[in-house]
């Protein structure tokens, strides 16, 4: 398979699955203002997903549109990070995931916007401003929950700990990213990611999650049991009424 296609698909799937999870908070967040904030973040991610999947389809050259790629692939064909598909948990767990993921995306897009592929560089250049705000939003909440009440501190720590075993996969290098010259090798982002995330965790008075077993497999289409349910909700209307428009 075409390396550039798979690479665009990886980034697009990360964004699409994150958008779907984030959207689950709409009308369920702790306050109306947070509903809108998370809604905005989810829509930013969806916009990134659309650009990336559209580009993937174009690169593949088999006539698949962004919708075909989003709605008519099965679980094993999705190559997103497992972190993105994890259930939201409580608000603190969602915020922990957003801190980990947005910091990763920010570093990645910062690199990617200077790459030699004009399309990818353009998508990254637009997205980098969006994810900078996502990082800020997550940071503000980690600080407030971590350094808040005993209850909020406990929940923030639990959230950071629960998402931690899925962060190793963010930085897993493989043959494809080493072969493809426009790709950012995620391994190169890990030190800076650690520095930034740890600075927030320390300031929040939480503690660094213990090193633990790290899950992997998302890039090869191996997922947690949660992705299937997410896809069922994401895809069922498009599959029940193929070709429907409104």
């Amino acid at each position: 398979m075409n390396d550039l296609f798979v690479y665009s698909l990886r980034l697009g799937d990360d964004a699409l699955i994150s958008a779907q999870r984030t959207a689950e908070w709409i009308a369920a967040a702790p306050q109306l203002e947070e509903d809108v904030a998370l809604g905005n973040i989810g829509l930013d991610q969806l916009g990134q997903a659309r650009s990336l999947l559209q580009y993937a389809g174009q690169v593949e050259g088999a006539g698949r549109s962004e919708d075909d790629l989003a709605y008519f692939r099965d679980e094993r064909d999705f190559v997103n990070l497992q972190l993105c598909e994890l259930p939201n948990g409580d608000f603190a767990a969602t915020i922990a995931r957003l801190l980990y993921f947005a910091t990763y995306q920010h570093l990645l897009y910062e690199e990617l916007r200077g790459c030699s592929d004009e399309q990818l560089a353009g998508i990254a250049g637009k997205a980098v401003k969006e994810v900078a705000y996502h990082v800020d939003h997550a940071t503000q909440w980690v600080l407030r929950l971590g350094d808040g009440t005993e209850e909020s501190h406990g929940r923030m720590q639990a959230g950071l700990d629960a998402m931690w075993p899925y962060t190793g996969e963010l930085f897993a290098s493989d043959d494809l990213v080493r072969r493809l010259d426009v790709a950012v090798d995620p391994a190169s982002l890990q030190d800076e990611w650690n520095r930034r995330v740890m600075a927030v965790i320390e300031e929040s008075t939480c503690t660094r999650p213990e090193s633990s077993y790290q899950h992997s497999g998302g890039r090869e289409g191996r997922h947690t049991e949660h992705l299937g349910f997410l896809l069922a909700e994401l895809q069922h209307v498009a599959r029940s009424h193929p070709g429907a428009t409104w």
Partner: protein
Amino acid sequence: MIEPLWEVFVRSRRGLSHVHVGSLHAPDATMALRNARDVYTRRQEGVSIWVVPATDITASSPDEKDEFFDPAGDKVYRHPTFYEVPEGVDHL
């Protein structure tokens, strides 16, 4: 927990004044500013935001309406249009 209420003012573009657009809840000023960004400028409504604790605003009371505002009603001479510009004064 009910969070404090903040009044939000947005300047739509350079050169104009900040205009009150609504209010929102937030735990502190930093979050109030971010919430305002998310709630009130998501469709490019502004280039600058102020947030003010609602409790810091002193408002006129509807009960004082008569003595506050009615006396201005018949003072037409307070409007510049009341005066005729003398002939020969071009650049007033």
